[in-house]
């Protein structure tokens, strides 16, 4: 898993840093697929890709110099992350992934309809609670799944047609042929 991700990210970095190398082969793929010489403007011409490469070098050089300069800073003793001087920080004080996404989830709430449980604390001396939120996939969970389930439910009503007797199936074929014949004549 990690190796595959690593290879992909390396490829991304490669395309990002030296896009010139990728432009020609990509153009060839496009022209082969489309069958003609030039359907789309050549990627090579649209963006002056060699510039990107030229700029990537100073970016890396500047980055390297700054890195050296910043890393060469005299270092004091390592300390815990600043936590307002509190004595007993714990693991629950790390920001969570769900919280990280919450801003966008709330913002897109009209599409995503997040399901939230246990968010409200009531009473002066409340009992410990659990908070749980879940964002169903709007396409899969909200359209595709219910849609297919609904279809399955409706269609299951037609189950009786599947009697399992060869003769009845033959009759279906005959009826179909008849219908087609009538339709052709009309």
């Amino acid at each position, binding site marked *: 898993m990690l190796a595959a991700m690593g290879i992909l990210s390396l490829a991304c970095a490669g395309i990002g840093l030296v896009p010139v190398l990728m432009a020609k082969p990509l153009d060839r793929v496009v022209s082969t697929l489309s069958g003609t010489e030039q359907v789309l403007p050549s990627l090579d011409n649209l963006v002056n890709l060699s510039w990107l490469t030229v700029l990537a070098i100073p970016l890396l050089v500047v980055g390297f110099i700054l890195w050296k300069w910043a890393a060469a800073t005299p270092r004091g003793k390592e300390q815990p992350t600043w*936590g*307002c*001087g*509190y*004595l*007993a*920080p*714990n693991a*629950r*004080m*790390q*920001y*969570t*992934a*769900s*919280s990280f996404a*919450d*801003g966008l*989830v*709330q913002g897109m709430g009209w599409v995503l309809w997040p399901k939230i449980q*246990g*968010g*409200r*604390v009531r009473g*002066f*001396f*409340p009992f*410990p*609670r*659990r*908070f*749980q*939120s879940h964002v169903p996939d709007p396409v899969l969970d909200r359209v595709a799944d219910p849609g297919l389930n609904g279809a399955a439910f409706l269609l299951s009503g037609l189950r009786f047609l599947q009697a399992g007797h060869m003769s009845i199936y033959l009759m279906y074929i005959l009826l179909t042929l008849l219908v087609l014949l009538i339709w052709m004549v009309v």
Partner: protein
Amino acid sequence: MSKYAFLPIVSGQSLPLSDIQESSLEDFRKAIIQGVHDGLRLVCFCADAELRLFAILAEDAAKQLRIGWTKLAQASFPSITPHCVQANLFEREIAEQFGILPQGHPWFKPMRFHASWAEGRDAWGRTTSPSPAVMDFFTVGGEEVHEVAVGPVHAGVIEPGHFRFQCHGETVLHLEIALGFQHRGIERALVGGPNILSLKHAETVSGDATIAHVWTYCRILEGLAGVRVPSRSEWVRGVALELERMANHVGDLGALAGDVGFLPTASFCGRIRGDWLNLTAAVCGSRLGRDWLKPGGLGFDLEPDLAKQLLPRMAKAWADTRDAIELLWGAASVMNRFEAAGHVDEAQAREIGLVGVAARACGIALDVRKDHPSGPYIDHPIEVSHAESGNVHSRAWVRWLELVESHRFLLEALEGLALAPGDPAPPPLPSLAPSSLCVALTEGWRGEVLHMAVTDSEGRFSRYKIVDPSFHNWFGVALAMRGEQISDFPICNKSFNLSYCGHDL
């Protein structure tokens, strides 16, 4: 005979302990639960080293307090908190200070994280000294929730405290507050007093509310010593208290503007607050009013000449204040922010016993200056300012209304003082009544400041209890954040602007 077993008493009154009949534990609990159920407020509930429990209920409508006490047979009693939320912190304090266990307390956690005062008796059975703010916090379980732990060292120039948010994304599911970092032992230090340090300790309960606490402390001593303060001196004390209110409210409104990034009011108010502080400094040499008040009278008088000098300076400061704060109400972008955050409803506010600006912003017209008046407020009543919505805007608006009212009071007082000749320096205070109890309330700029002292057979404090308004109100901050955006916490917190040191003592 009233339906409450507790003895009526007024703010500033001292009486021998023997005059207050001891209740049985059962009656004591009943009186508190029934009283709070009927709309009285639990304003003080504490223990002392002899396992006595004292409770004071405020019957605001009748302008009086009700006091009762009981002596425990052992170091535990059935918790009142399940029936009366206002007892929550008081009971945890009692447990922490004297190792007395409130059995069945639903939220039994330390509140200041110090070792028990009672040798070898700890309510949690701890043997080592506790680590601050290290406790079992309320958690909302689930892998998606993250906790945000803020403090003790906060971003701004703010006192230390620990805030634990249960969050999902930007939404706060729950906030729990753990304080105690400022605990420096003031109540313990006052036992055995008054001595030469006691006045300084009263001044430093909460530095920004120096006058409110010192005045209350002075009234305790004056009550116990049976001294009456000349009315002119009381006027001057009123000036001190209202100047303190002016400076802090102006500062708070500026800071609220700053927290929403509204530069004009933030910049102007920051400076104008200094003008009000400097008016205080003109009288006593200290911008916070240190050494201005003294038991029995004043440390520094506000002579007629000085009063005349202060009037034009105050007029200038007031003109600037109006100008700067009116910008706030005119800025739609600010109003949007203020109205959106930090809501506490009136029922909640009553149940948890909010006081001061925070309570008045929820529509509870509660003000010690009107409900338990003393000194200049008896003859020159103030009008209680309040708002209805219980959000950040209401708390800001109440501050503004109070500024207007305090300015009116100051103008009247300074004009009066400019004509009245000064009082002679107060004579040294006679010794305090032995085996007595005195309680005094003052409406500081944050809200109700309560001090209660019990003296021993030699007239020394055997117990000195301080209840800063912050003690009641921190719970309000936590409630106001439920379901809110975490990015609104700073303005929400600032709109309460509670004292950490006043809570931690």
